[in-house]
């Protein structure tokens, strides 16, 4: 009996999928067809949503996968793999009722397999497995347990109610039949390079030139995307990427080099569209170093650097100087806190106050020890502009008697030095946030430790208390107040020298229409993009 039911169900699913394939076109009267190729500076490390940890991969997984829920352009939570959900009155239990018409992208020669609750459970378990290398784990520790109720119903119980819980169920679901290892996922698994998902686009192949070719998913449950093919093209040189766009070899650049903006803006065939990723760059200090444990020393460094000048020259003024741990476009920014001005004399005074004096060699000394610090920079970040920033920092600090020894390291080695060994004095890096602007993992003392985000070992009971309170509250205004306080404290404490938020621009040919860009995930609405028949090539 049960068996019959399953078969019937499966049949129903297959049937409805077939029906959908028939009726798979979007009903918006916009033309299908065309290929959109876009340039990225660099290659994605992996193509799955679990192990990937950089923006190039994140953008691709947005095309390949879906979450239980999605967030639309109007900031509304909308059904994706779950067609509806309910929440218990105490806000702790979320039950998701899954769509029954979703199929996984088929492997070559195979029939599409149906998506079910097992896939959701599988994804959750693999994501939380201790041996899975993923940045997602910490973000889902708020979940107490996950249960499969039936093939199309799953239930999550939270440890306690939290703000915006529903949005967190936008994590991407992967198929149970995907990874080779059913327990945990690492970058050795074949799945991470050759994934299948439920999203609007399917991975077709990776060419010899490392172009990643994606084709429209005819069975996409929201209707077949308009553009037939999306091709991600990695470039090894940013100038060539810009020229490729200018001479029509590609249709879009997802992130334009700031120095190239004037040239692209000067050509009316292109649209430069800003998208505001809430991100900022900073010099982060290791408070484990006794010299840097003194707030005055960290403040001195911030007074010593001319941030506006760096921004103007190295980034063509494409950004805004910030005063604290949030981007100016964020809701959490404390508008009363102004950036520390460029005042080298004040920097020197602060260092003197902290017990330093200039030695014969011009460098600051304390107890006979020269103020020398190591600055570690990941090579992955290395570009002309980054080198310039680092060189300028070194020069600015030299002017106030601080000796900076710069060390460029391979990305992985850099991460180990910074996040595991904590072997550094200063780092140059950037954080990028989604709309939550959640800085709790950056400055809470509970986040000190191997592979945790408070790499500098910054510890302040007042900050801890505020972060705790902010996590517990369900009141938006209260959380806003707390963040304003955090901003003011951290701006004064200088665990980082907060630098700037850069403007992100995508550039694309005008022929690509109805382009809406998600500021963080980029391609969230790409299934709606289209090209007129005459523009398709």
């Amino acid at each position, binding site marked *: 009996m049960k068996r019959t039911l399953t078969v019937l169900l499966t049949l129903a699913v297959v049937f409805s999928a077939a029906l959908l394939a028939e009726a798979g076109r979007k009903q918006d009267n916009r033309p299908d067809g065309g290929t959109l190729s876009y340039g990225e500076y660099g290659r994605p490390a992996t193509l799955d949503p679990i192990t990937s940890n*950089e923006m190039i991969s994140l953008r691709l997984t947005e095309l390949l996968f879906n979450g239980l829920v999605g967030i639309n352009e109007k900031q509304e939570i909308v059904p994706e793999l779950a067609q509806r959900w309910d929440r218990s009155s105490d806000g702790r239990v979320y039950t998701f009722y899954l769509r029954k018409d979703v199929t996984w992208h088929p492997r070559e020669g195979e029939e599409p397999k149906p998506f079910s609750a097992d896939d959701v459970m599988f994804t959750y378990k693999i994501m939380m497995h201790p041996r899975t290398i993923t940045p997602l784990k910490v973000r889902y520790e708020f979940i107490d347990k996950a249960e499969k109720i039936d093939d199309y119903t799953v239930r999550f119980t939270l440890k306690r109610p939290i703000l915006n819980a*529903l949005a967190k169920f936008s994590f991407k679901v992967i198929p149970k039949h995907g990874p080779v290892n059913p327990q945990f996922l690492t970058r050795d698994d074949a799945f991470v390079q050759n994934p299948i998902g439920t999203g609007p686009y399917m991975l077709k192949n990776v060419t010899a030139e490392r172009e990643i070719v994606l084709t429209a998913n005819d069975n996409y449950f929201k209707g077949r995307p308009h553009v037939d093919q999306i091709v991600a093209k990695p470039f090894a040189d940013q100038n060539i990427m810009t020229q490729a766009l200018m001479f029509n070899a590609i249709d879009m650049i997802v992130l334009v080099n700031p120095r190239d903006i004037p040239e692209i803006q000067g050509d*009316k065939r292109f649209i430069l569209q800003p998208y505001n990723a809430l991100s900022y760059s900073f010099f982060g200090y290791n408070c484990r170093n006794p010299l840097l444990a003194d707030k005055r020393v960290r403040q001195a460094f911030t007074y010593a650097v001319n941030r506006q000048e760096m921004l103007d020259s190295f980034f063509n003024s494409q950004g805004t100087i910030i005063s604290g741990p949030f981007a100016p476009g964020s*809701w959490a920014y404390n*508008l009363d806190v102004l950036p520390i001005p460029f005042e080298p004399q004040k920097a020197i005074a602060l260092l003197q106050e902290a017990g330093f004096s200039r030695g014969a060699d011009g460098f600051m000394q304390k107890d006979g020890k020269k103020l020398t610090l190591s600055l570690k920079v990941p090579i992955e970040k290395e570009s002309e502009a980054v080198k310039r920033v680092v060189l300028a920092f070194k020069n600015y600090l030299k002017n106030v008697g601080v000796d900076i020894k710069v060390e460029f390291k391979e990305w992985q080695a850099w991460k180990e030095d910074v996040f595991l060994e904590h072997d550094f004095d200063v780092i140059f890096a*950037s954080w990028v946030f989604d709309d939550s602007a959640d800085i709790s993992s950056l400055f809470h003392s509970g986040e000190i430790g191997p592979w945790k985000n408070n790499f500098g070992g910054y510890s302040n009971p007042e900050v801890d208390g505020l972060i705790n309170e902010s996590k517990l509250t369900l*009141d938006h205004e209260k959380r806003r107040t707390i963040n304003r306080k955090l901003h003011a404290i951290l701006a004064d404490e200088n665990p980082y020298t907060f630098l700037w938020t850069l403007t992100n621009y995508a550039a694309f040919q005008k022929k690509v229409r109805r382009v809406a860009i998600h500021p*963080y995930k980029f391609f969230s609405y790409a299934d709606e993009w289209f090209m007129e028949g005459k523009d398709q090539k």
Partner: protein
Amino acid sequence: MNRTIVFLTILMVAAAPVFGADDSVAKAMKLYEKRHYAEAATMLRAELPSIEHARQGTARLTLGMIYLKNAELHRKLYLEALSLHQDYLKKLAAEQGKSRSRFVDLYLGEALLASGKGEPALSYLQKFASTEGLEPRAKAMAQVSIGLCFALKGDMQKADEAWAGLPGADPEVKAALAAAYSKAGLKDRKPLQLANESLEVLKKSGPGASLRYLTNVASVYAAEGLADKGIDLFKRADLKAYSYKEAVSKAKIITFYDAFLLDDLAQLYLMAGIASLEKALEDGKIRDTVNFYLGEAYAQSGAVDQSVKSTAAFIASSMPQQYRDKAAARQAANNYRKGRQFDAIGVWDELSKKQPLDPELLAEILIVCSGVRADCPKLAAKAAASVEAGEGRRFSLLNIALGRYYSAKKDFAKAASYLETGRDKSNKNKIEFNDPEMLVNLAEAYYRTKKFSEALEIYFEMSKQFPEVRQLQEALQGIYAMEHKSAGDVKIY
């Protein structure tokens, strides 16, 4: 010949070398071009007495232009602030429980009142006034506004009931009452005298005036036509100051702002602009040019007939055709305001048929269309085709005009896309490169399409020159905090 006159004027106004590099008119013009309006106006006004007689007209014209532009900007800011305040405060007001703000009722009531929604305003204000344990001044403020609600409805008896027994010795309350009388048109109650009295009290008692207080006095001055006096009130004021900070709990602090500060500023600037331009009219050499701006200023102030007169004088002048065409487009808008919609649209259509069509003229037509909220689909289509084919930044003006047209039509997605095209990308938020009024339009379009961070970034940059946009920033942040949906992701790179 005509051109010569214009160029002469230009030389007089803009070209520094003629009068020396430190010429204050030229300096003001430079500041104006950088959109440092307040700075430009303050400087030039202070210099007026020392400017030689022959240059007085030009100086007045320049000052008038500066005020006019600043008035337009503040009018737009005010309207945007009003709607942001309401959106934000309504969300706050919808909260329940003991951590609900009390003052939200007062400020929401006032915002509703300002936007002409007397009934709902009254209910919030009354709710606030009946709150237990209020400080007397706060309660009095609510009573003043309740009275104004009734007065505006014509129910003077209830208005007087509300206004009875207010702590009249408190200069803050006195000023609020003066402003209410003034807004209700109760001249017989001598709002000006009341406001001046409050000023006297305040001077004696010592503590600095609050921004709300200044705003109330300024409202009275504006209504009495005392533009310069009104503007001077804000000379040393911190325009980003909040009106009230409510500590709901230790960790929940809400700041409230007065949107009508922006209304007052807009009014005062406009009046000062008109006064300055009218003075400039005395200089026969530049009369035509002055009429161009006066026509615009009168139209903004609602003095349509005067606008018709000045604009007609400009059209009849021997100024270059392209500017007379622009004036003709504006004149049509005046006719539209006077109920002659059909004629107006006819004129616009006619002007838009000129060959070869100047994108600036088309932009002007669209902007005046949007200004009177006229429906001009043909013009919009023409403009859309024109920007699609057009080249360079000459067309940025037309893109911006299209954006404003669609903003007025509440099609904010379209508006955002046109305005974004018209924006200078390399300096996207800098007012030196982008008209701040355009940026406010764009911020509005982004807000309406829920791209909060884009809108916030615009105001963030703008607040460096115009601190009074703080109230828009705070409201927008509040809405963003409540509306954003995200998974809490953060990555290092």
